[in-house]
């Protein structure tokens, strides 16, 4: 039993890392990773929602029938997201303003509905919680890393402390284009080393991943 839980965590961090391997939840990944702390905060917020939504959905999996699955999930996720939003606004207002509308947008993050559909709705509470934890940690690590890279290259700083003199800053990296370039190089590296990634090969699975997620929602 214990092994299974550890396996779920490892799965989320490495084997099915939501960002690097599954390419899910790209919007917040690119939008808020302008600095390490923002990426980290977004990751933690998403992880919290993910853990609790997995627990609740697993808990209610016998009550919620197939027909009302999607609206029920949406209501549960939206409640959790609004709760996180209010808590952040109350206790960490600076992060609340930094993350802006991307906090409520956690609701439409493919990772959360995706895990609810593919894992929590079919598995027990504890293992679902660990699945959420693993995925959440994986997402947080990915966002923190991308944030770190962009902060160093773009603003020449780590956690706000300047480490590179101003003349060598590549400002574009904290702006929109830099987000695209950073992710492009990252996926190119994955292709190069044949790392297991949804981006390997011809099929663009970001579209497929979100597409199937969207199709399920429509259906």
């Amino acid at each position, binding site marked *: 039993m214990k092994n299974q839980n550890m396996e779920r965590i490892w799965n989320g961090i490495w084997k099915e890392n939501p960002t690097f391997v599954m390419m899910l939840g*790209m919007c917040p990944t690119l*939008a808020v990773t302008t600095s390490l702390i923002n990426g980290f905060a977004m990751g933690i917020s998403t992880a919290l929602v993910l853990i609790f939504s997995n627990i609740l959905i697993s808990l209610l999996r016998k009550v919620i029938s197939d027909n009302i699955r999607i609206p029920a999930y949406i209501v549960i996720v939206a409640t959790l997201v609004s709760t996180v939003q209010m808590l952040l606004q109350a206790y960490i207002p600076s992060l609340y303003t930094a993350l802006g*509308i991307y906090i409520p947008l956690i609701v439409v993050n493919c990772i959360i509905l995706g895990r609810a559909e593919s894992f929590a709705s079919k598995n027990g509470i504890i293992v679902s919680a660990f699945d959420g934890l693993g995925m959440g940690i994986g997402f947080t690590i990915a966002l923190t890393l991308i944030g770190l890279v962009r902060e160093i290259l773009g603003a020449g700083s780590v956690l706000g402390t300047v480490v590179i003199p101003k003349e060598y800053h590549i400002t574009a990296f904290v702006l929109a284009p830099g987000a695209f370039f950073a992710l492009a190089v990252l*996926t190119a590296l994955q292709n190069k080393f044949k790392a297991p990634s949804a*981006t390997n090969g*011809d099929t*663009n699975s970001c579209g497929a991943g979100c597409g199937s997620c*969207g199709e399920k929602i*429509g259906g």
Partner: protein
Amino acid sequence: MKELLLIAVGAALVNNVVLSQFLGLCPFLGVSKNVKTAAGMGGAVVFVITISSLVTSIIYNGILVSLHLEYLQTMVFILVIAALVQFVELFMKKSMPPLHKTMGIYLPLITTNCAVLGAALTNVSKNYGILQSVVNGVGISVGFTIAIVMLAGIRERIKYNDIPDSFKGSPIILVTAGLMAIAFFGFAGLI
């Protein structure tokens, strides 16, 4: 009038929803293989965002604000959007079959398109009234369409180019999107 024009141009070009706000990235990367489907997706997004901007802003300004229930906005918006998409699909199927044929397959994908919820939330965070919200919604969705059709056009050409192996697939698309984002910076001088 001038103000409305500024909102529309600002939303469509200057703060392009995909290239500078990163909303709706999944369809942007996923449904941009050729110009025709990209345009279809764009059309469906324009349709849904315009209607949902109108409905969500009426609900927000008319009901939530007067009942002091602003904190329910996320939940209400996402439910309204999900219901709206289903409703639009049913309505189209019944009374506009040709339109449903071209746009129908994209509609279910739109609920999870964060640009739709993003548009509704931006309208609230910028304190837009109902008319301004609709104009902003149209601007945002037209901006999405411009971006996705352009990317599709470029991707149709990229197919025939000699690209380094490791950049084949999504890396080159991301690089293209990055270059487009730089180009869109040029619009910043507009307003």
